[in-house]
């Protein structure tokens, strides 16, 4: 792929938090590109600044040094981003369906046109029939799935996902992985995905970026040359497991 295809470019990004007990360097120096329609995962030890990185990309946090370049000809970074936060963050006072439609209201789009889509998304995340429930009537994993539907409702070009499947059981997680891959490949989206699960990262991604412990640096970047479409069977192949072990070793060295 050429330079032209780059959607998001992160250059020498550094983040220092100013806290009561002085400065805390969360991100040391991170540089990578995300290409249009690419699925990129970031793995790294807990507390290494993955969430911080994603928040900076979403414009929720100021960076300390470095550059984030977005190709504005490809999408509008204010409106065409979907963010699945590490916590579900549902609004207690809104029914599930209204939580899913929140981005539509914020973006001042015509809500009626998106109701059907919201129902489809809820069905996709396995929550058909729960649209009129309040969040406190759902389990933690169900709430997290609502938040995934919410992040997709406005059909964003760039999807930022911060350990979206962390609260799910193994089987649901597997299902959600497949659904995410389907959405991604069908609708030509670009995904920046954070996870602790190396196998999940390899399974989903075109590229896996490995960060070191805090202050984080990029210690590895693996192009995952596995054929698509990918099915569960892939996980038993030696090629797949070779990637998993490579990523694991890079992480372990830290």
């Amino acid at each position, binding site marked *: 792929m050429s330079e032209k295809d780059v959607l998001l470019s992160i250059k020498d990004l550094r983040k220092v938090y100013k806290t009561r007990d002085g400065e805390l360097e969360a991100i040391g120096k991170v540089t990578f590109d995300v290409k249009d329609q690419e699925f990129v995962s970031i793995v790294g030890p807990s507390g290494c600044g993955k969430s911080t990185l994603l928040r900076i990309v*979403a414009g929720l946090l100021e960076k300390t040094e470095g550059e984030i370049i977005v190709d504005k000809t490809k999408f509008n970074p204010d*409106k065409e981003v979907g963010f699945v936060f590490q916590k579900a963050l549902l*609004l207690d*006072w809104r029914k599930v369906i209204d939580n899913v439609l929140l981005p539509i209201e914020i973006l001042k789009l015509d809500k009626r046109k998106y109701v059907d889509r919201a129902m489809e998304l809820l069905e996709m995340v396995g929550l058909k029939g729960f649209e009129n429930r309040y969040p*406190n009537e759902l389990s933690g994993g169900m709430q997290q799935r609502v938040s995934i539907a919410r992040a997709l409702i406005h059909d964003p070009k760039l999807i930022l996902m911060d350990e979206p499947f962390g609260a799910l059981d193994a089987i649901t997680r597997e299902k959600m992985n497949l659904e995410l891959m389907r959405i991604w490949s069908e609708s030509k989206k670009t995904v920046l995905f954070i996870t602790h699960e190396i196998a999940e990262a390899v399974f989903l991604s075109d590229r896996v970026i490995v960060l070191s412990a805090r202050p984080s640096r990029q210690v590895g970047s693996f192009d995952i040359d596995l054929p698509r479409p990918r099915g569960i069977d892939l996980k038993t192949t030696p090629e797949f497991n070779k990637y998993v072990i490579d990523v694991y070793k890079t992480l372990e060295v830290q």
Partner: protein
Amino acid sequence: MSLTAKKPLGVRILYGFWDFLKKYGLTILAIVLLVLIWQIVVDGFHIKKYVLPSPKLVFNSLFGPQAAKNHWWKHIRTTVLEVFGSFALVLVLGVSLAVLISWNRWLNRLLMPVLVLFNSIPKIALAPLFLLWLGYGVKTNIWISFFVAFFPVVINATTGMMSVDDDLLDLVKYLDAKKYQVFLKVRIPASLPYIFSGIKICATSCVVGSIVGEFCAAKSGLGYLMRDAQAFIDMPTMFACLFLLAVIGMSFFGTISILEKVCMPWKRSRRED
């Protein structure tokens, strides 16, 4: 009941009444007992009616053949109007003021000290001033009552709006939400429980404020009637006024509790079925 069925408003109000009964049933029983003992004591010790009238006399002044001379309805109407008027004013102005205070740092620093300073004056002492400024009447009493009652609502609503979790704000901010959207979609709804606890404090203050206004100067209202009756040492009428004020205060409080259930259905959704 199916998972998706929406509870109709009527059912929700019924739930409200049931809650009211559960909460206040014993209280009502206690009041009935108190009245009984009162009657027995007054009869037994032959207490004079200008010292302490018996409940029966109080009842007569309300519903007996002589009741019409007091024009009860007129006075009740005035007082209720003042109580509800000031309540509505407190709600609208109080929440708006809270939005202003939490809008940004500067407005906060500007308005908060003024508010705190203002709150340290005994606001009932303002009543004579208002009379001079506005003349006497329902409108004046509404304003007096407003000033007596509005502080807790402003403070509570402000606390609610300022204590919203930063993460929840990020949820709308990453979509470039405008500030008014942040308030409409997140801050104000999140502060509803706080606003309601402020409102409950203000409910009694609204009644106090209205009566104080009527004491000072008025043409009608239960406070006015009480002062009038005082001149004739008409104890039964004075007690009847007190009784009516208690009833007004209680139904007002009950209405607010029901309103709370209706406005915040998610608070009780777990218990529903």
